[in-house]
């Protein structure tokens, strides 16, 4: 048995490549966007406009609909709304592990990234609809 142990015995170990780089890339991009832009977005849409500090005309239906109906406007809106979700659901998925919720990791993964995917498709479809109207 030990006649030719050199190559085989040493290289026996199987290394399985993880697909995590895909999700990590999206996580990083979303995290970057969230770090730089979410505070000002929340400030504008959640506080300044509703409180009337910035006139609501600046976020009026006509203005925004016009913006969303241009291809670049649609792209910007898609990125701003959907990309953070790929960041946050990645974190939520890993936090479940941190909290010791070991059961059904596969399903947790499908649900977490599936959710980000579903909302992305939802927003994408709406924008496409407005674009082609």
């Amino acid at each position, binding site marked *: 048995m030990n006649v030719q142990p050199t190559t085989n015995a040493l290289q026996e170990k199987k290394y399985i*490549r993880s697909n*995590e780089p895909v999700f990590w890339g999206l996580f990083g991009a979303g995290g970057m966007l969230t770090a730089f832009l979410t505070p000002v977005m929340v400030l504008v849409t959640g506080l300044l406009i509703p409180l009337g500090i910035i006139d609501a005309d600046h976020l009026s239906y006509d203005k925004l609909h016009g913006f969303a109906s241009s291809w670049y406007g649609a792209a910007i809106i898609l990125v701003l709304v959907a990309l953070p979700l790929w960041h946050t659901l990645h974190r939520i998925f890993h936090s479940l592990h941190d909290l010791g919720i070991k059961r059904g990791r596969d399903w947790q993964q499908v649900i977490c990234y599936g959710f980000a995917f579903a909302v992305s498709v939802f927003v994408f479809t709406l924008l496409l609809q407005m674009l082609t109207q």
Partner: protein
Amino acid sequence: MSTQATHAQQAVVDKVIEIEILRYRPEQDEKPFPQGFEIPYHPDMSILEALQYIKDHLDSSVSFRWSCRMAICGSCGLMVNNIPKLGCKAFLRDYYPQKVTLEALANFPIERDLVVVMDDFIKKLEEIKPYIIPERDEKCLSEGTYQQTPEQMEKYAKFSMCINCGLCYSACPQYGLDKSFTGPAALALLARYNRDSRDAGSAERMKIVNQEQGVWSCTFVGYCSVVCPKGVDPAAAIQLLKVESSKDYLIGMFKPD
């Protein structure tokens, strides 16, 4: 044991500090239990010296590891008030007059008292091929040494300072949750060799990095770099390896091996 002598000594010194040690004696204990000691306090006394005082004067059965007393050998790691520290690099003055609790390094099995089983850690260090793998290994001695500029050395110098103390494994919740994770020190050491201009073993080591148990178990908690007594910054090493692994992934998509 001369308890009287101890009392006499304590009467002379004015300041005492309370030290609580989590004891575990495998031949007689089912599980660990805390034991308190009172020792004379000196501001320049390290935790390791406090343990030595206890072993010499109060209870000779207390077990702990040490050797160099100067943060070089990496053998005296333990939890001080639940934070991983080197016993020889932590001082009583930073805790006095509060009580100090000592416990074996977290995330490792306890062998006895403050001594832990390091086998898994050592196995991981060995696994990452911690040696230079030259491009061709038949380079003759007469051809001279492998040369390197200071700039090339700077790329890995920080990651080569590890003393294998295991504090970072103790600080890492991901290692605590899943022992299959390669872990901070081993990955930092891996980065150290992959980033060395004299080494050509990156491709072999990237297979370890690319696994789920490689860099991808890390969620960038970052505590490993905080507790490291040698400024190795394993969290940075892992982060850089994640970037490398992602590049490797892209290349692998077009050129599967």
